[in-house]
């Protein structure tokens, strides 16, 4: 085993240990998916990763992204209409595009939006499946064109499967009724987080990416859910504490 392989092995072990550690009672599903997207970038040498989940009307919605900037998230979201992610979701099977230049006919809007914003050249979408049934998809973007190796695709799918388990086991599971509730809760949490990012970006004069970083650090340091911190940022005045990284958790009057 060469050095690169062994450091990758170490990272892989660390990823699964950390992900297993995350699956405690009442854990934060958005935080888990955010960590997963991060590990995809590191382990699969991707340049960006995003996770989309389907709502009950089968529309795909972004729940985690390694890039929290508005434009990039909008591009991910564009795939509720067209793109590798929605094709992967509909077929419940992986979609690999080794060179996006060749996919412009298939997804004209998606290809144009991608070409406008970032120079990603290849994209791979792996399904999040429960008993063969799709619930969302993991998206991997590379700046270099070319296919991913079968071993990397298998590892990517294993990470996608961990995401599925995470979503399902947020609370006691195994009935269809709970799955739908979990998905809806995760999607609503994401809306709260986006609004909270807006508050932080405005108050701190920082980018959406930096706003998410502050929100995430504060949540992890204080062992709180991202959506709970987000809620307090929107409804009361936790923004200052989050921006300063202070561990203030006094309750403050809510805005009416």
């Amino acid at each position: 085993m060469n050095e690169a392989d062994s450091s990758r092995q170490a990272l892989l072990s660390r990823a699964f240990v950390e992900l297993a550690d995350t699956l405690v009672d009442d854990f934060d599903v958005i935080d888990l998916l955010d960590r997963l997207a991060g590990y995809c970038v590191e382990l699969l040498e991707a340049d960006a990763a995003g996770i989309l989940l389907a709502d009950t009307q089968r529309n795909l919605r972004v729940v985690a992204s390694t890039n929290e900037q508005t434009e990039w998230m909008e591009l991910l979201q564009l795939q509720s209409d067209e793109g590798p992610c929605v094709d992967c979701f509909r077929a419940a099977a992986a979609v690999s595009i080794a060179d996006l230049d060749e996919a412009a006919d298939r997804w004209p809007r998606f290809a144009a939006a991608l070409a406008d914003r970032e120079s990603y050249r290849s994209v791979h979408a792996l399904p999040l499946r429960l008993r063969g049934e799709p619930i969302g998809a993991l998206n991997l973007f590379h700046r270099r064109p070319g296919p991913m190796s079968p071993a990397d695709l298998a590892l990517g799918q294993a990470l996608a499967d961990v995401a599925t388990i995470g979503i399902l086991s947020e609370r006691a599971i195994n009935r269809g009724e709970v799955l739908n509730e979990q998905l809806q809760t995760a999607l609503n949490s994401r809306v709260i987080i986006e609004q909270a990012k807006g508050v932080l970006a405005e108050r701190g004069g920082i980018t959406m990416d930096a706003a998410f970083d502050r929100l995430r650090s504060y949540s992890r340091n204080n062992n709180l859910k991202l959506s709970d911190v987000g809620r307090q940022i929107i409804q009361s005045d936790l923004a200052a504490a989050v921006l300063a990284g202070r561990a203030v958790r006094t309750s403050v009057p809510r805005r009416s």
Partner: protein
Amino acid sequence: MRVATRAGSCPPTPVAEPGAVTHSLLAMGHDVRDVRALAEKICRAFIDGLDIDGAAISLHTASELRETLYASDAISDLLEELQFTLGEGACMDAARTGHPVLAPDMSDIEESTRWPVYAQAVVDQAGVGAVFALPLQWATINLGVLDLHRKAAGSLPVAQLRDAIGAADIAALMLLGLRTDPGEERVWDRSWGNRIEIHQATGMVVAQLDISATDAFARLRAYAYVEHRLLGDVARDVVARRLRFTEET
């Protein structure tokens, strides 16, 4: 670690096409401007599309002010009244937690432990076996709670429950639309749910004017309406800091 999600003896649960309730809400049009009339239409769609006997929508605000917007029948009315009086129950829990609260058998020991007085009253006074309470929410905004009931105990079929959860999301958008309506032709729009730029801009306006998320969203809509612009474009300008809201905007 390779996790075999395909394995297992359970048959796949099909991710169905929109169910009957979702379908009828989407077909309802975008121009109902009276909140009680809207609540009635929403309740009717749920009653027609699900195996239930009645429905009600109540408002639960932060100031603990509670009000029933619509109740389909005397029993639904009684169920709301019981919870407001007793201070406990399925729809109170749904309002507080933001999660659906499903009580398929009100005479079950689990429910009587959860709500000692309410559970007993639901069975004895109202003769109701099952209660399903769905929160109507958009991000942190609680727009009300939908309380569904059936005389006979028993769970809703999975497909109906999925339909109900999805339809509750649309009902919430309808109520949000009405609450923030600047007088537009379309009071609500289903695309609001997945527009990242709109959520972020709402947060920025919350901070710019120190107002609630509902008010911030209303300001964005009002601006778009007055300027004859698309809400998404206005939101993108706010996020890009090309547009700032002040008291005078």
